[in-house]
């Protein structure tokens, strides 16, 4: 399906194929490139009218993404009509953010084309069609980290319907203190066991503070939680400073 929406508000006719669009930015870029418009100096009034004409003709009026873009174009159009300050240096082009987004999007659109070519080339190489059944042997030992389990708990809690959520009782947690304590432990050693960090006979609050501090330190890349062998205890290792990235 293609339609000529020429003459709506512009002298240049343009042709669009609606199935080709993957979103409003795609449509906008199409209009700009098709008419060889300088992206740094978009005639926003014309483009906005063309954009509205196209989404109207293709019944895209219901599509929130397109409507949002239409609203944005109209807003920019109005801003462009406002009188500029005398000092032109002060003037901020209302189109600047849109141009930045369009250029960024165009870059990814080009990557998408590259990926499509790559995928279609690779699709002509076939892997072996018959793979024998995996042998009936014991599965490899599981590796599990405490942090993984706790994150899973968090996911479950989040996904639970509200009424099941527990009453939230503030506890005397001292995550900051635990973080400082763990950091100081690591000043002299690169590796510690979980029990060494938590300490013997720790209270639940102490234990929890330490675990949360550890989770946070693991998340920021200061430490890594690992198991040396499948059934061994959790080892907390300090990451080398450059590995935090």
């Amino acid at each position, binding site marked *: 399906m293609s339609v000529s929406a020429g003459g709506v508000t512009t002298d240049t006719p343009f042709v669009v194929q609606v199935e080709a669009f993957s979103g409003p930015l795609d449509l906008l870029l199409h209009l700009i490139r098709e008419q060889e418009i300088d992206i740094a100096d978009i005639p926003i009034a014309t483009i906005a009218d063309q954009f509205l004409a196209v989404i109207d003709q293709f019944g895209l009026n219901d599509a929130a993404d397109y409507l949002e873009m239409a609203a944005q174009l109209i807003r920019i159009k109005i801003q462009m009509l406002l009188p500029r300050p005398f000092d032109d240096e002060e003037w901020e082009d209302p189109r600047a953010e849109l141009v930045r987004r369009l250029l960024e999007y165009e870059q990814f659109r080009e990557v998408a084309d590259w990926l499509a070519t790559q995928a279609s080339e690779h699709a002509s190489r076939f892997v072996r*069609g018959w793979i024998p059944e*995996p042998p009936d*042997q014991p599965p490899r030992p599981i590796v*599990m980290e405490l942090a993984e389990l706790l994150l899973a*708990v968090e996911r479950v809690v989040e*996904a639970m319907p509200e009424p099941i959520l*527990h009453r939230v009782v503030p506890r005397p*947690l001292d995550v900051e203190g635990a973080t400082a304590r763990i950091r100081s432990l690591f000043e002299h050693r690169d590796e510690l066991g979980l029990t060494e960090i938590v300490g013997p006979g720790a209270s639940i609050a102490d234990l929890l503070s330490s675990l949360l501090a550890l989770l946070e330190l693991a998340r920021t890349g200061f430490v890594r939680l690992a198991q040396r062998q499948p*059934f061994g205890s959790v080892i907390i290792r300090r990451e080398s400073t450059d590995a935090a990235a």
Partner: protein
Amino acid sequence: MNRLTQLLEAALFSAAHPLSVDDLRVVADGASREEVGEAISSLRAHYDDGGHAVELIEVAEGFQVVTRPTFAEAVADAQIVRRPRKLSRAALETLAVVAYRQPVSRAEIEEIRGVSVEGVLRSLIERGMLDVVGRGDGLGRPLLYGTTPLFLELLGLRSLDELPRLDELSVALRPPSERSGPAEP
């Protein structure tokens, strides 16, 4: 290798099941049975003389390229080597629910997680991380599940008491003020 032999190799390699002479004639653009037969012999000889770890065999349904029996161990290793050693998200989440709600029935886990957990539950039991610990009082006296000592061992915990309490965890990991809307799928 001539073109016909190559076509048969490509077809036999990529097919999910053995191919008959007639199947192979289709690939070979209508070559005669004799031509296909010759190409099969040629391919077989290629694998045998070239010292390949694979061979061309004839089974009831047709021809197939398979690894030679002497390499069974390498085949098994290759299949095991990529088997995941990490638990899936679904397994971890089920484990999390059981750890905090045990003893717990399958129906309760499913109510909390909002999905069927039959498969993942069975796999966690097979892997020795969960076990049946009793029966509930409700309708049909449902099986109740709990964690095993292996579960604690894997986490390096001495006892279940060392797990943080759920309410403490949720408040600490995520302040209620930041909680907004349903979680992402």
